[in-house]
C-alpha cells in the first residue's frame, strides 16, 4: 500500500485542485503551514483525539481479572494479605481447568468429615487424649478423598511425630531420674569417705606416735586414692544428666518447630482447612507457652507486610478460619449474582473466590452448567481483549454482541461507543489524508495515513484510499487529450467531474493546469451560486435568488443546471425580469435613457437589486457621457 502511495509523488503538486476542494468547503486544517491557501475552513484532524482512548476503555472492560488480582506484580490482595499469584498464564490454566471440571461427587461427605474433625478439636468439646486420637484417626479417612490431596495424612503424620517425640522425651526423663539416683548414691559415698578420713587424721594426731607414723601415712594415702575415683564417677554421672536434659529440650523444640513450619506452609499454600486442623492439634499437644511462632516469620511478613503483630499459632488459625468463611461468602455472592443475570460481576467474584478457596470444597457448590457459562464468558472476554489489542474493531463489535448475550450486565454501550469513536477517528484521518493528497501535500498525507493505520489498521477506507491513488496514477497517460476534447466543447461540467484524474494527468502541463484550475473554479462557483439561489427560493427570496442566478449566468450562460434553476424561478419574478430584459436590450441599442428608465422601474419592484443598481450606475454614466459629447460637438460647431 505504501509503495503505491509513494509512486504518486510526481503527481502530487496538484495544488490547483485545492481550490475546488476549498470551494466545497473541504480542506485539511493544517494547510496554513504550506503554500495552499487557507480559506478558513477546517477539516477534522484526528490529532484532536487521543488515539489510545479505545485501548484504555478496552483494557478496563475486557480484562476479566478481578481488581484484587495484580498479574504485573503477581500478587493477590486479600484482607491486607498478599498471596503470590504466580503468573497469569498459570493462573488462567488452573482457573480454566476449574471451569471445565465438575464438582467432586463426594464433596458433601468430605465436607462433613472435615467439619467433624474440626468439631472434635474445638475447645468446646472434650479435649481428652481419646478425643484427640479419634480426630487423628479420622484424618486417615479424610485423606482417602481425592479433593484432600493427601494433606490430611501430612497433618496426621505431624501429630504422630509430635506424639513420638513426646514419648522419647518421656524416656529421657526416666534416664535422667535414674542418673540422679546414682548421683545421689555417689555423693553419699564420697561424703562418707571424706568423713572417715578426717576421723583417722584426728586420731593419729591424738596418739602422736612418731614411729608408726610412716605406716599410718600409707593407709591414709590409700584412702585418698579411692575417694578420687568416686569423685570421678560422680562427675561422669553429672555429665550424663546434663546431656539427657539437653537432648530432651532439643527433641521438644524440634517437634514444635516442625509443627509450626507445617502450619505456615499450609497457610501459604491456601490449604486453609488443613492449616486450621493442624493449628487445633498444635494447641492441644503443646502447652500454652509454646504458642508463639518460632518459624515462618519471613514468609508471614511477606504475606502481611504492613503489620508489627507477633505471630502465634492462634493468629494462623484465625486467618485460616477467616479465609474459609470468606470463600463460603464468596460462593454465596457468585450464586446470587448469577441468578440475577449479573454474570460479569459473578465472573470477577469467581476468580477471587477460586484463587482464595481453590482447595476448599465450598467451590463445589458452583454447578457444571454455571462453570461452563463462566468459561464461555471468560474466553470471550479474553478474545475481545485480544481483538482490541489487535485493533480489529469490527471483530470487537461482533464479540461484544456475543458478550451481551452471555452477560446482561456487560457494558455494551460503552464498548460500542469507544469502538465507533475509534473507527470515526481513523476514517477522519483517511479523509484528511485524501485532502492532503489532492492538494499535493505529501508529508501531511503520510502523517494522516499513518495515524489512520495506527488507530485502525484494518480500516476499509485505507484500502479505498490506496485504490483511488492507484486509479489516479493510471489516469495520467490519456488525461491530456481527454481534457483538450472537453475544453474545446466548453464542457465545464465534464471537466469538473473528472477533475481528480485530470489534475493528476496535467500535473506537469502548466498552461492546461491553469485552464483546469479556472474551469474548476468556475464550476465550483456555479454550484455554490445555484445552491444559494435554491436556499433563497425556499426562504421566499425569489428576487435575490434570481440575482444569484444572474451572477451565475455571467460565469457560464450555457450551464445546464443554472439554466434549469432560472427556468424554474422565472415565473415568480416575471415582471422584474421584463424590465431588466428591456433595460438590457435598450442599453444594447444605446438607448440609455430608456434603459435607465427600465432599470429604475425594475428597481421599484426589487429595491435591493444588485443588477439594477449596477445598471443604473452604468446607464447614468453613459447618458452623461453622451451629453458631454453632444455639448462638445455643439461647442465645436
Amino acid at each position: 500500500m505504501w509503495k503505491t502511495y509513494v509512486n504518486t509523488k510526481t503527481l502530487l503538486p496538484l495544488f490547483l485542485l485545492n481550490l475546488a476542494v476549498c470551494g466545497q468547503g473541504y480542506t485539511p486544517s493544517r494547510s496554513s503551514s504550506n503554500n495552499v491557501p487557507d480559506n478558513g475552513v477546517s477539516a477534522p484532524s484526528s490529532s484532536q483525539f487521543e488515539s489510545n482512548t479505545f485501548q484504555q476503555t478496552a483494557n478496563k472492560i475486557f480484562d476479566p481479572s478481578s481488581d484484587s488480582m495484580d498479574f504485573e506484580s503477581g500478587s493477590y490482595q486479600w484482607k491486607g494479605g498478599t498471596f503470590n499469584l504466580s503468573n497469569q498464564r498459570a493462573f488462567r490454566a488452573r482457573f480454566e481447568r476449574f471451569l471445565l471440571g465438575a464438582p467432586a461427587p463426594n464433596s458433601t461427605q468430605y465436607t462433613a468429615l472435615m467439619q467433624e474433625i474440626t468439631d472434635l478439636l474445638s475447645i468446646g468439646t472434650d479435649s481428652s487424649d481419646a478425643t484427640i486420637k479419634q480426630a487423628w484417626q479420622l484424618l486417615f479417612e479424610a485423606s482417602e478423598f481425592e479433593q484432600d490431596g493427601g494433606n490430611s495424612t501430612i497433618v496426621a503424620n505431624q501429630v504422630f511425630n509430635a506424639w513420638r517425640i513426646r514419648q522419647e522425651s518421656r524416656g529421657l526423663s526416666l534416664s535422667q531420674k535414674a542418673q540422679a539416683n546414682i548421683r545421689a548414691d555417689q555423693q553419699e559415698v564420697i561424703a562418707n569417705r571424706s568423713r572417715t578420713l578426717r576421723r583417722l587424721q584426728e586420731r593419729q594426731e591424738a596418739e602422736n606416735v612418731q614411729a608408726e607414723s610412716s605406716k599410718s601415712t600409707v593407709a591414709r594415702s590409700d584412702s585418698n586414692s579411692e575417694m578420687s575415683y568416686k569423685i570421678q564417677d560422680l562427675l561422669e554421672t553429672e555429665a550424663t544428666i546434663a546431656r539427657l536434659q539437653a537432648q530432651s529440650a532439643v527433641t521438644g523444640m524440634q517437634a514444635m518447630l516442625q509443627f509450626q513450619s507445617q502450619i505456615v506452609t499450609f497457610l501459604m499454600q491456601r490449604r486453609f482447612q488443613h492449616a486450621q486442623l493442624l493449628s487445633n492439634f498444635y494447641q492441644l499437644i503443646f502447652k500454652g507457652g509454646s504458642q508463639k511462632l518460632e518459624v515462618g516469620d519471613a514468609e508471614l511478613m511477606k504475606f502481611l507486610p504492613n503489620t508489627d503483630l507477633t505471630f502465634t499459632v492462634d493468629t494462623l488459625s484465625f486467618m485460616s478460619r477467616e479465609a474459609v468463611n470468606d470463600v463460603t461468602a464468596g460462593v454465596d455472592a457468585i450464586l446470587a449474582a448469577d441468578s440475577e443475570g449479573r454474570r460479569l460481576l459473578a465472573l470477577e467474584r469467581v476468580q477471587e473466590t477460586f484463587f482464595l478457596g481453590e482447595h476448599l470444597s465450598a467451590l463445589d457448590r458452583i454447578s457444571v452448567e454455571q462453570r461452563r457459562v463462566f468459561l464461555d464468558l471468560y474466553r470471550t472476554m479474553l478474545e475481545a481483549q485480544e481483538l482490541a489489542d489487535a485493533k480489529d474493531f469490527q471483530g470487537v463489535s461482533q464479540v461484544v454482541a456475543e458478550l451481551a448475550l452471555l452477560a446482561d450486565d456487560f457494558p455494551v454501550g460503552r464498548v460500542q461507543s469507544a469502538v465507533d469513536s475509534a473507527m470515526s477517528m481513523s476514517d477522519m484521518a483517511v479523509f484528511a489524508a485524501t485532502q492532503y493528497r489532492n492538494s499535493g501535500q505529501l508529508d501531511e498525507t503520510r502523517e494522516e495515513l499513518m495515524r489512520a493505520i495506527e488507530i485502525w489498521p484494518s480500516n476499509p477506507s485505507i484500502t479505498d484510499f490506496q485504490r483511488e491513488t492507484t486509479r489516479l496514477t493510471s489516469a495520467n497517460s490519456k488525461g491530456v487529450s481527454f481534457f483538450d476534447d472537453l475544453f474545446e466543447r466548453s464542457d465545464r461540467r465534464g471537466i469538473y467531474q473528472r477533475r481528480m484524474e485530470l489534475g493528476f494527468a496535467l500535473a506537469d502541463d502548466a498552461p492546461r493546469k491553469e485552464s483546469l484550475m479556472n474551469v474548476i473554479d468556475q464550476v465550483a462557483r456555479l454550484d455554490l451560486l445555484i445552491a444559494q439561489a435554491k436556499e433563497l427560493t425556499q426562504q421566499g427570496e425569489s428576487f435575490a435568488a434570481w440575482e444569484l442566478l444572474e451572477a451565475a449566468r455571467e460565469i457560464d450562460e450555457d450551464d445546464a443546471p443554472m439554466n434549469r434553476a432560472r427556468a424554474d424561478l422565472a415565473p415568480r419574478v416575471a415582471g422584474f425580469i421584463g424590465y431588466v430584459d428591456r433595460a438590457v436590450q435598450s442599453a444594447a441599442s444605446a438607448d440609455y435613457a430608456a434603459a435607465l428608465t427600465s432599470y429604475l422601474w425594475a428597481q421599484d419592484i426589487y429595491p435591493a437589486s444588485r443588477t439594477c443598481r449596477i445598471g443604473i450606475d452604468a446607464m447614468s454614466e453613459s447618458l452623461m457621457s453622451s451629453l458631454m459629447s453632444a455639448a462638445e460637438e455643439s461647442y465645436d460647431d
Partner: protein
Amino acid sequence: MRTPSIIKEGSAKLILIAVCSLLLLLGLLSLMIGDEYSNLDSFPASDFAVSPAGFLGNEYVLHAQIDTQLQWQPGIGRLVVVKTEKTGIRLPVFIAERIEQNVHSGQRYEMYIQIQAGGLIHVEDLRKY
C-alpha cells in the same frame, strides 16, 4: 350751487369706467400673452415608458418630486430621478447647467420638459409649487 356737484358726479363715473376698462384691457392682454406652462400637456409617463421614441421632440409639463440625483457634470448639468405626482413612476430627467436652481430630494416641482434624442427628458424650466 348745484352745478359744481353735478360736475363732480360726472367725473367720478368717468374715472370708474376708465379703471374698469383698464382692468379689462389688462385681462385681455394677459389672456393673449398667457402662462408659459399653461399651453402644455401633462407628461404621459406610463406611455412614455412603453415607447419613448414616439415622444421625441414633444414638450410637456411634468409635476414631480425630486427622488435622487444620479450624476452631475460641471458645465453640462445633472441627471436626476424624479417621481411623478399622479402615478408615482420614477423617471430620469436631465437638468441643464443653465437652470440655476438648487434641487433637493423631496422638493416638488412643476417642470417644463422636452423629450430629446435618445428619449432623454430635458428640463427646460422648472418652478416649485
